[in-house]
């Protein structure tokens, strides 16, 4: 693309999805602007993870459309792979490549997908690993790292692709409590640097601190969305009030 795309990076229009009988996404309409941090929250089973995964088409949709930088998501093949390369994704279970060293985990995308020279990719990978604080682990394999370290490597692996936006699917839910902050700190830093982020999380403090917008989902629908302060202090819907009551004290 010659010109910088100025519109919303992610647009979802009338998106519906079923898992068999279950209607998991109901008429979802959502736009994410460049540099915006959108946090998806809601009770488990509300469809927030599924929504997150439809954005890089790890989940297909039944109807409606999803646009990335104004272009409709390709169905399959090379175009889809090229699009995925532009969207970073961080998973709940880290999903590092178990047979590769930490360094190779980070360089695989740049070398294989972007065809960058290995030396150059390795130099940048080391910078990224230093940035997320795990540079000294570069020669180890994932199983030798703690969960928090693995998740930070996973973030570095995504960043190595120079993504236009990043998706975080419950990035701290599989972590021991003492490791949650080390991952959140990296995410806060990313947000500060202007990364466009869609984050599914139960970390309400993170949402309050970092989000530009909180999107509350229940039963496959977006029930309400607002700035974090408005949402947490003055929820409009009964569902949101119940949800916030249920997690008080966390």
């Amino acid at each position, binding site marked *: 693309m010659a010109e910088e795309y100025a519109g919303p990076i992610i647009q979802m229009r009338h998106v519906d999805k079923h898992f068999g009988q279950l209607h998991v996404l109901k008429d979802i309409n959502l736009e994410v602007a460049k540099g915006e941090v959108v946090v998806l929250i809601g009770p488990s089973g509300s469809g927030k993870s599924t929504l997150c995964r439809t954005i*890089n088409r*790890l989940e297909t949709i039944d109807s409606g459309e999803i646009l990335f930088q104004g272009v409709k998501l390709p169905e*399959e093949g*090379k175009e889809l*792979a*090229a*699009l*995925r*390369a*532009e*969207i*970073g*994704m961080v*998973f709940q*279970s*880290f*999903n*590092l*490549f*178990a*047979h590769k060293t930490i360094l190779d985990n980070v360089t*695989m*995308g740049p070398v*294989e*997908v972007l065809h960058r020279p290995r030396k150059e990719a390795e130099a940048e990978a080391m910078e990224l690993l230093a940035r997320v604080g795990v540079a000294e682990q570069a020669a180890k*394999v994932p*199983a*030798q790292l703690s969960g928090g370290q693995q998740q930070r490597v*996973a973030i570095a*692996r*995504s960043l190595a*692709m120079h993504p236009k936006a990043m998706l975080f699917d419950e990035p701290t839910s599989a972590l021991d409590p003492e490791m949650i902050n080390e991952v959140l700190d990296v995410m806060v830093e990313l947000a500060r640097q202007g990364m466009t982020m869609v984050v599914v999380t139960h970390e309400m403090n993170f949402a309050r601190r970092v989000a530009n917008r909180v999107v509350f989902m229940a039963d496959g629908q977006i029930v309400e969305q607002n700035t974090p302060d408005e949402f947490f202090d003055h929820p409009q819907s009964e569902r949101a009030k119940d949800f916030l009551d249920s997690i008080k004290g966390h």
Partner: protein
Amino acid sequence: MGVAEVFTEFGDIYLQSVLSTWLMTAVCFAGGLLLGIVATVMRVSPLKPLRVVGDVYVQLFRNIPTVSLLVIFVYALPYLGATLPYRTCLIACVILIVSAFASENFMSGINAIGVGQIEAARSIGLSFTQIIRHVVIPQSLRTTVLPMTNLLIATLLTTAMGSQVPLKPPELTGMVNYVNSRSVAGISAFVVSAICYAGTSVVLGFLGNLLDKKVRIIR
């Protein structure tokens, strides 16, 4: 005639038969692994027709006795105008059967990888073939060293089917027939062949264990 006399009388040709068995084992196992990888890639491909062909292939050659397949190659193929040398028939049969079992081993290795790593690979933009090459095959190979060692030993023993066709030089089991028809040392020849099989298997098993320790993926 004792074991020692078997050696003095048939030593040279016995050595050739050991080498024949080893060589066929190596060729059949290598061919079986390659074909097994091809079948497995078909079985996990996004295209349904390919998956079906891969599944049918594996079911077919996993469930047919080697001797039946050999009969087909030796006696039926000539009717179709393809008369292959005996050794080629044998090697082809063993490769087909080994590849089916190799594919089953690979599938179990793939199941151990977990869908998460595949999704991660997809989300950094790797194509299907890149995911197969850089994630699926290396991990699957490294997690299945022990079952593949079993399969290698099974390949070694399956080459004994070569005793059912005339081979020159014979392999270890055919060698027993060879000795038996020329002297009264049938039992001794059996013992010698059995020792060769067992000795080879033990060494292969040992090497397999070593390799497994070296390449096994820490999870």
